[in-house]
């Protein structure tokens, strides 16, 4: 099954991040492609629900189908590139530009990534 994102509520101090300013966590699940981002299944992303993205930002965007979110990296030309096996944004007239996608499609900016080791057996 392809990569997908699911909202989670981590324990501990990380909980402080969730709250009134529209901040939340998403967990990366499914089949994750190992690319230059080196993301892994189980990674938690701290998201600021902000549609104002800049070049270099990792963002979550709405694919347009049901409740489906995907990760993408904003390039220097403001185009979104697919990461970790998520579907690439649909390309129109030489590629989709972040601002031309409209604010509705970008659901948040990744501010951090939490990766936990499993307890040693």
């Amino acid at each position, binding site marked *: 099954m392809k990569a997908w994102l699911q909202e989670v509520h981590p324990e501990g101090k990380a909980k402080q*991040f969730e709250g009134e300013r529209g901040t939340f966590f998403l967990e990366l699940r499914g089949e994750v492609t190992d690319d230059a981002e080196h993301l892994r299944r189980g990674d938690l992303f701290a998201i600021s629900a902000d549609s104002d993205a800049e070049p270099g930002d990792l963002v979550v965007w709405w694919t347009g189908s049901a409740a489906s979110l995907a990760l993408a990296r904003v390039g220097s030309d403001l185009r979104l590139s697919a990461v970790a096996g998520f579907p690439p944004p649909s390309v129109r007239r030489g590629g989709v530009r972040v601002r031309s996608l409209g604010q509705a499609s970008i659901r948040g900016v990744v501010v951090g990534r939490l990766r936990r080791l499993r307890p040693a057996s």
Partner: protein
Amino acid sequence: MKGASFRAVLHVDLDAFFVAVERVLDPRLCGRPVVVGASPSRRGVVAAASYEARAFGIHSAMPMAQALRLCPNLVRVSGTHGAYGRASRAVFDVLGNYTPVIEKVSVDEAYLDLTGTEHLFGRAVDAADRMRREVRERLRLDLTIGASRNRLVSKVASAFAKPMGLFDVQPGQEARFLAPLPVKALPGIGPVTTRRLHDLNIPRLGVLADTEGWFLEEIFGNYSKPMQRRARGEDDTPVSPPWERHEAKTIGHEETFAADTDDHAFLRAKLRAQLESTTRRLREKGLLARKLTVKLRYADFVTESRDATLPVATDHDIELLQPALELLHRMATRRTLVRLLGVRLGGLVQGYWQGGLFDPRARRSRRLVSVLDRVRAKYGVQAVRAGETVWLAQAENRRHGSFLG
């Protein structure tokens, strides 16, 4: 493009370090609620608690008797001499393979600057990931790591990641990361400032970052600007490895006694113990002292100090003992109880003691000191003590319930 040529700073913290080391020594402790500390009969306190014990509300500095009441199945272990130091050195040896720029904060905490190591280890976050896997595989200890462009944000991030986590704050997102957090999450904002900020309806760092500067300046004065910069995640404090740190001009040790005293034997023993610990620090740093100061404070807060300049720079407590005792004798003339005693060594120069190369007694004495240092490094500071200070240590252990038991 963000993140291309910025600093890469890690804050590394060993999870429940003392407990983790005890579990390496005795794997039967794994998975059980464990604390390290002295027994309740000796008025011991919790020095470290496992995550299983913390689930019962047990935390560091809690009286052991209270911890045992909260969790009747709690396993208590006394500290193991030397084991923590050895484990810490082994961990830092691994970290040192990734960067020489390490600032050790304590036995279980450090900052690492990985800037410029990308061509060797890839991105800092990937190096951090390898680091903690390597430490686990080789030493069976877990690291928690915060990664970002500066030490302030990395420190906050590592608190997020506990236990066994790696939290990587994306470059350029420092302010967004901090914004939803309570103001007390920022290092440097203590309970008093937190209360004042709450009174001003500033509960979160994002609100603090956006508040008008003039308003904060009215309340907090010069402290307001750095506080606001830090709330935005801005920090350019360097990671300072030992060779870049400003060397102390003096090294000393002073102590306020639990009860005021006029017992001269006690004062002499204290002075000797203070000289032992201070000269050991000198030797660790490869320094010699030319100046000795002894300080005395009486119960009525009258404070006196006397200096002596030594004929030859030394790092040897036995050579300092006689002049220190003479200074003490000259000062302790009032018929008033003493509340504080301290020694300070100044006139520091780099070097190792060479006194009396051709004097067999001095050579023997030098060998003795170096053997004592090695024994103490291996088995702990209290493993070998001057006879005069043994009863002192025992008396203090009884009084304070030393965690080492």
